């Protein structure tokens, strides 16, 4: 009897997750695929007189790929990622190393302060920083520096994302540092090695897996850039309605009411994102070995 129960239980335990996976990952993906091969056409009259769904093959994909707005949005996202990923991982590593220095003071308070932005939603963070960027209300010199200029806007957007992400990544790397055995350093310290040399030569190489994982997750996050530019948009002329790919998809689906083209763009985006993630995670596991 115990053997029979044993045979059933794993399936029961796995069932909820699999059901959710099917309903909310696989099914939407399939539905998006189905939609992407269709389009809505009006049936006649000046105001349409009704519309019908027709099969159009790969037309939507062609339209999506030929749309210059899509490519501009990808370029802008990459620009922000170029700023966001190194800054986040770099500062996270820096702060984690600093926290690990033996004689550092105020470690607990500063660690907590830097971790707190993780609990602040991207939308809220963008609101806070947005008002800080605006000349009308800026305490950081917004009336002298144009935070919403054509080039500075990338730094401004990246800054909000960095602000929200450094803390979590710092804690991940810090925890990895803390799990390194202390004997490693004893020998180095006896030899007269400075903290800096120790950090660069010993610590960093040993926490490379953690750093790699942080890089992977920040890269994934930058693909999903949406909240920050979307929230900053009402506050400036510099952010358009299709500033990043996800905004473009949203715009297609809900403003232009073209769910089919949006579905096609979503499918393309998912494949591209999976490809990037796959390559990145392969690199991470190679680093781990």
């Amino acid at each position, binding site marked *: 009897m115990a053997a029979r129960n044993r045979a059933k239980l794993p399936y029961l335990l796995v069932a909820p997750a699999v059901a959710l996976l099917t309903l909310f990952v696989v099914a939407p993906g399939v539905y998006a695929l189905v939609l992407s091969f269709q389009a809505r056409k009006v049936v006649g009259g000046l105001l349409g007189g009704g519309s019908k769904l027709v099969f159009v093959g790969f037309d939507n994909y062609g339209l999506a790929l030929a749309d210059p707005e899509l490519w501009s949005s990808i370029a802008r996202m990459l620009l922000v990622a170029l700023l966001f990923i190194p800054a986040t991982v770099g500062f996270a590593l820096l702060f984690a190393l600093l926290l690990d220095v033996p004689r550092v003071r105020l470690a607990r308070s500063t660690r907590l302060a830097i971790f707190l932005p993780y609990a602040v939603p991207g939308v809220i963070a963008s609101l806070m920083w947005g008002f800080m960027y605006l*000349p009308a209300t800026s305490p950081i010199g917004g009336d002298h520096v144009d935070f919403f200029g054509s080039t500075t806007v990338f730094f401004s957007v990246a800054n909000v994302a960095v602000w929200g992400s450094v803390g979590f990544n710092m804690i991940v790397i810090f925890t990895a540092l803390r799990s390194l055995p202390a004997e490693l350093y004893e020998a180095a310290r006896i030899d007269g090695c400075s903290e800096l040399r120790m950090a660069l030569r010993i610590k960093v190489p040993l926490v490379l897996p953690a750093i790699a994982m942080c890089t992977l997750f920040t890269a994934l996050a930058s693909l999903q850039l949406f909240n920050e530019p979307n929230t900053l948009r009402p506050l400036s002329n510099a952010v358009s*309605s299709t500033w990043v790919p996800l905004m473009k998809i949203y715009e297609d689906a*809900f403003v232009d009411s073209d769910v089919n083209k949006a579905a096609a763009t979503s499918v393309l985006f998912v494949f591209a994102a999976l490809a990037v993630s796959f390559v990145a995670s392969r690199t991470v596991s190679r680093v781990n070995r």
Partner: protein
Amino acid sequence: MRSQWRLAGALLAGALLVTGCGGGGGDTSAAGGKVNLTFWDWDPNMDKVVDIWNQAHPDIHVTLSNPAGGDQLVSKMITAHQAGNGPDIAKVEYQSLPALVSNQVVADITQYTADTVKDFDDTTLKATRFDGKVFGVPQDVAPLMLFYRTDIFDQYGLKPPTTWDEFKQAAADLHAKAPQVAMTNFDAADPGWITGLMQQGGADWWSSTDNKTWQVAINSAASKKVADYWQGLVTAGTVAKNPSFSPQWNKQMNEGQLATWISGAWAPAQLGGIAPNTKGKWAVAPLPAWTASDKTTGIWGGSATTVTTDSKHAAEAAQFASWLNTDDKAVTAQIQNINVYPAATSGRSLPILSSPPAFFPNQADYYDLVKQVAPSSRSFSMWGPDVTVTFSGYTDKFGAALQNNTSFATALDDIQNATVADMKKLGFTVG
């Protein structure tokens, strides 16, 4: 290995099964009992007007909700309609009404409004009546007018301009005497604003001669005339670049750095919230004209109250829509709380309009002036069926043009091309 594929296949089959099944939502209400209607509206203080209805009509209860405003509400309505859970009644700007009709979101209420339409003149009804069918009860009209700061004008010796040439001259004079004060702001974030100016300039962005083919003329000569004029002012630095209602613009209004605001007749209610300390310092004048003594003006906004195709109580919903915009009590409450200028002819002679809005105590003839201007306000022959595409094109392209100092006329060309391409993609005939 085979079992793995079988499992994957099962997952896929499950997914297809789910996507295949349809079934709508939608609630049912008790037959013959109390009727519950949902009303989407973004007017501030509309709840006070709805309360009046609910007290007088215990059997038809209207619940007000405010999910979004303007263009955003249009998008929400279309997606809600596709999901089958739209509201019963909704406030829709005239500019978005054809788009909602073509998406079959808004219902034909001709049969319920035979009497109601008698309270509106033909020009007003043109905005909600297509092909002889009525798709909404007009709520207000919003002729574009010039609101100016009397104290700033006095300080710098300016007179309210009556032509656009005079406006340009006044702007240059002001800039010379006080560079930190701008004549007005160019709003690249609200398409309703620019279309009002375009309408005054004689542009007709959408029209149809045979009721089958669209003519789209967004980049016509008349449009470019208006665009070039404003480009000149922007380049000369005499107008500010911030959109109305933006935080930066709010600051400028509060600190007296904007001398005028080109806005609709609903402005007084908004000004009270924007810059309360400037009460009594504003006055309204007709919009400057292209040729002297031409009274034409455009419109900025103005909406109708519509009934959706999702509504299960169209008759009651239409009843509310008609009441809201023609009943004396309702219209008075609207004027008082929301500061709209009513579309209904009877509404324009209500006693409450004999005194000026609360924020303009210094201009006793405020509403008389609006009444004079309203009949000469013109709109486009029609609004396009995919107006959201045009409007988001405007905010993006003109926003970029302001940001990068590039040509407004080219932006108009881009918007024209995008609009026509989208209409053709949807299957409309564009001539």
